[in-house]
């Protein structure tokens, strides 16, 4: 690829991403009443889960070697995972199903823009999902955690951050593969919800140490839902080797991105337009 083409590749995507972020912000702030209800919902969810964890630990001292403080950290990372994937990927994938059914995908494909990139980052909900919905309830979790009990080294912290972002890539690939059957089947909402449920339970409900090796391969590589939360938390708590998990996550992410590209090209070949 020539240098000018390389620059154009990134410039095009940067302009598209900036436009998507601005438009999403304008749309989200058009109706302020919706914002209060959303904050209420996420705050109540967080409070109910904090109550759940507190009740659990009145009956036990550890669960799979996780103390109450460790479990709160796991919950905190899990919430960060949820809000990030929900803001950047999950809702865009749900909208992709609607785009196919309404024929809007035709409009996207006929335009001179990188279609897969556009579909992936169609709406970037930084204000609504991260700032508005994510921060208020997450503060409650941050206050509940005894941070002085943790001692994060530079290697574990930097590996954890890298694992978090690699995990987001893997989650996006899984969500993409779960919605793409809409091209052939006409509907894939329940398949997407199934993938999301697996991510919720295997990725954010049970820590890495709760699974044996077979399930770690299943949910860490084949359906890679554990990387963003479970791997990250395990590394931060010093329960797993950061380098091993980092290499694992990088390999899975790269393979995931290749699969995504292949599946997309295959889907486009099969796609029959909704319009006449």
């Amino acid at each position, binding site marked *: 690829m020539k240098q000018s083409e390389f620059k154009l590749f990134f410039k095009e995507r940067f302009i598209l991403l900036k436009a998507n972020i601005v438009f999403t912000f304008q749309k989200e702030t058009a109706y302020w009443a*919706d914002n209060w209800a959303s904050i209420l*919902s996420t705050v109540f969810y967080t409070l109910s889960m904090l109550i759940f964890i507190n*009740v659990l630990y009145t009956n036990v001292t550890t669960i799979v070697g996780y103390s109450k403080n460790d479990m709160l950290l796991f919950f905190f990372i899990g919430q960060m995972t949820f809000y990030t994937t929900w803001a950047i990927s999950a809702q865009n994938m749900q909208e992709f199903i609607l785009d196919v059914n309404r024929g809007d995908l035709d409009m996207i494909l006929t335009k001179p823009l990188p279609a897969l990139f556009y579909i992936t980052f169609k709406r970037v909900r930084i204000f609504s999902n991260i700032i508005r919905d994510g921060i208020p309830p997450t503060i409650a979790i941050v206050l509940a955690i005894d941070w002085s009990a943790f001692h994060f080294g530079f290697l574990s912290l930097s590996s954890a951050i890298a694992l978090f972002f690699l995990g987001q890539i893997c989650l996006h690939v899984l969500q993409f593969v779960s919605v793409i059957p809409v091209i052939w089947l006409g509907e894939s909402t329940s398949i997407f919800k*199934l993938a999301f449920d697996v991510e919720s*339970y295997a990725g954010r409900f049970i820590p890495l140490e709760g699974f044996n090796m077979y399930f770690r391969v299943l949910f860490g590589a084949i359906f890679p839902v554990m990387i963003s939360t479970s791997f990250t938390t395990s590394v931060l708590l010093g329960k797993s080797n950061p380098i091993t998990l980092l290499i694992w996550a990088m390999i899975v992410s790269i393979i995931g991105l290749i699969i995504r590209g292949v599946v997309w090209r295959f889907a486009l070949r099969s796609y029959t337009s909704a319009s006449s």
Partner: protein
Amino acid sequence: MLYLNILRFSFLRFFSYPYEIIATFLRTVVEIAFLIFFWSLFTKNAHDSFGVVGFASYFLIASGINELVMAQWGKFAGAIGEAIKTGTINNYLLKPLSVLPVFYAIAVGRHGVNKILAIVTIVIGLLLQPPQTFQSFLFFLFFFINALFIAYGWNILEGTMFFHSADARGMRNAVNHIIGVFSGLLIPISLFPEPFKGFFKMTPFPWMIFGPVNALKITDFSDEVLGDIAIVLFWSLTLNIIAHLFWSWSIKKYEAIGI
């Protein structure tokens, strides 16, 4: 007969997408499997062992009851709310029929596959840990019927909120997170510390799910059981009266869009 036909039509529409049926079935299996797996990890460290079989039976029955009575994320409330938000409720208000049973039939029909699966999970749960005596099974039926009434009234309240607020979806989400914990769906109420357990039992939430499941252990009319029966009857009656009054009042205030 009309409402049965609505139920049947809603049920058959779902069969247009068979893969969706398979995915819906798998979602229920995944949810129950992970809940049981999580609690099996819990029992390894618990002071009083509920036992893995005990937890498996509990969550199989609890998730089945949740689906049948429509406690958390009640589809009945969702059907009412969707119709109000989209304006399609006008279509039903114009017709000579009772609107609430129509939405109930739609909710049951659309999720008919889930209802069938719910019955299967309850049966499996009962086989894993059968009722202690025949009286326990009668108590279970009593509390289950009351759970239906309580959840019916609660769904009407939730759905009617959509007449009054553009934020109703967010409020509904907030309330349903609470229901998840305090109904016994996510964690048995018996694991709550004592003072809180007594407080939550005074609310309607535990009686939608935990009440029927716990009834399988009841063998006689102790003072505690009589107290539980009184609370459950109170909520069955009161919640439905309040819900129907709220619905009637809201309908009178409703201004439709269109001619």
